[in-house]
């Protein structure tokens, strides 16, 4: 469903992606792992068109992601940002229903609010949260609201950018389980970037290891521990010894 072919992206002298190739099949959950600053977020933003790659091709359903109707393209995606990226000036329900209150998916405000409250329930938040502002919520609750917003319009493809960063282990587990449930329930194609191994095991069908701007290894999550790939082994073990330099 999503294919990246020989994608390059540099910021001045910093060559972040150096020929990244990746295939994500429809209805599967792909998790990209890799150290901080290895270009995981850049890869994700290249697919969405938030960053333009310097070279290479990105296809979604076999079509060039840069061509065609941009609104229709983006309407297929939902995204949970690392810091949730909720809009401060809007209430929680207006954040969740953002897409349903404007544009091609616009619905009456009452209906949009009902859908927003239903999605909030789906991520384990009560209806009384709906009229609060994001600043009044804890980090874990903001992540859940971000998740509710990502699934509000029932997208075909959902991206999760570091979904458990900054959360305690219990809340991380809750978010991981929610993501897995939602992806399975909706039959969506998911792409998650993380360096949290508990998230990888909870969310992934397939795993890809990104290092030095290229995918070093990719395969099913149940083969990850026996991959034989030195990068993956070092990443799983968390060892300072190995091909990944501890000081970058």
């Amino acid at each position, binding site marked *: 469903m999503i294919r990246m072919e020989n994608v390059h992206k540099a910021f001045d002298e910093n060559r972040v992606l150096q020929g990244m190739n990746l295939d994500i099949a429809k209805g599967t959950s792909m998790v990209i792992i890799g150290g901080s600053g290895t270009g995981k977020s850049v890869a994700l*933003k290249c697919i*969405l*068109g*938030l960053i333009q790659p310097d070279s290479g091709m990105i296809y979604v359903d076999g079509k060039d992601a840069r061509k065609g109707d941009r*609104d229709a393209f*983006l*309407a297929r*995606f*939902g*995204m949970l*940002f*690392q*810091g949730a*990226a*909720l*809009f*401060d*000036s809007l209430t929680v329900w207006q954040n969740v229903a*953002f*897409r349903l209150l*404007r*544009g*091609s998916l616009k619905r009456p405000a009452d209906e949009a609010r009902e859908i927003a409250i239903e999605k909030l329930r789906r991520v384990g938040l009560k209806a009384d949260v709906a009229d609060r502002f994001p600043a009044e919520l804890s980090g874990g609750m903001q992540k859940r609201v971000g998740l509710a*917003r990502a699934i509000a319009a029932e997208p075909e493809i959902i991206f999760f950018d570091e979904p458990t960063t900054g959360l305690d282990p219990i809340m991380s587990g809750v978010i991981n389980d929610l993501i897995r449930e939602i992806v399975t329930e909706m039959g969506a194609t998911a792409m998650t970037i993380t360096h949290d191994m508990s998230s990888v095991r909870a969310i992934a069908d397939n795993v890809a290891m990104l290092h030095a701007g290229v995918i070093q290894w990719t395969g099913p999550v149940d083969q990850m521990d026996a991959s034989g790939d030195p990068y993956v082994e070092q990443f799983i073990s968390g060892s300072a010894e190995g091909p990944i330099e501890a000081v970058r």
Partner: protein
Amino acid sequence: MNPIAWLAELGRAVLNLLSAFGRVTLFALDAISHIFRPPFYPREFGMALLNIGWLSLPVVGLTTVFTGGALALQIYAGGARFNAEAVVPQIVAIGMVRELGPVMVGLMIAARVTSSIAAEIATMKVTEQIDALVTLSTHPMKYLTAPRVLAALITVPVLVAVGDIIGIAGGYVVATQNLGFNPAAYLKNTVDFLEPLDLLSSLVKGAAFGMIAAIMGCYFGMHSGRGAQGVGRATKGSVETAAVLILAANFVLTGVFFSL
């Protein structure tokens, strides 16, 4: 320093300046074009009207009332040197309407509104809210920039008109209470002396300064660097640039109206 190296430095600075001017101009044209192209966001426009217009009234009123009062005292003191104290109403009126009203309001808007727009949009950029807007099929220029620019274009001339009136009122109070002017004669002289062109120049300047203030806030916000330092730099840069451009635009517009 080697003259060639000095020349190269100068050339680089000029090129950077021209390049920045080009980027700002393209951004401004893009922002203005989005005002006329759907979709429109009435809620954001309403909020911008409230923030830029209504909530700026106190600072505009206080600034212009003190400026008008001080202007009356200065004209009286200066006029007394050649027995021309009687021109206080006329000079306060023309000074406020043609020059000080628009400039003081423009600078206050740069301080209050430009900084607020730049800080808000820069924070949105740093916290990925701008990226989130894009992924939610919403164009940031339409949702964030166009409503603010349109609101500033409409409200700042109104604020300037209000500022002109309050400034003249400040001069009136000082002149009638402290300098012994007859209230009725002061008002008559003020009204008789002002011409429609004076009012027009005031409003046109207000519209131009409003556009500059909003566009600079949006431009620096959208192009801010990372982290708290990036937000700080964007805010500082937006106010400095808006203030300088407002004063430069005032000079140009004054020249244009002077020639009419």
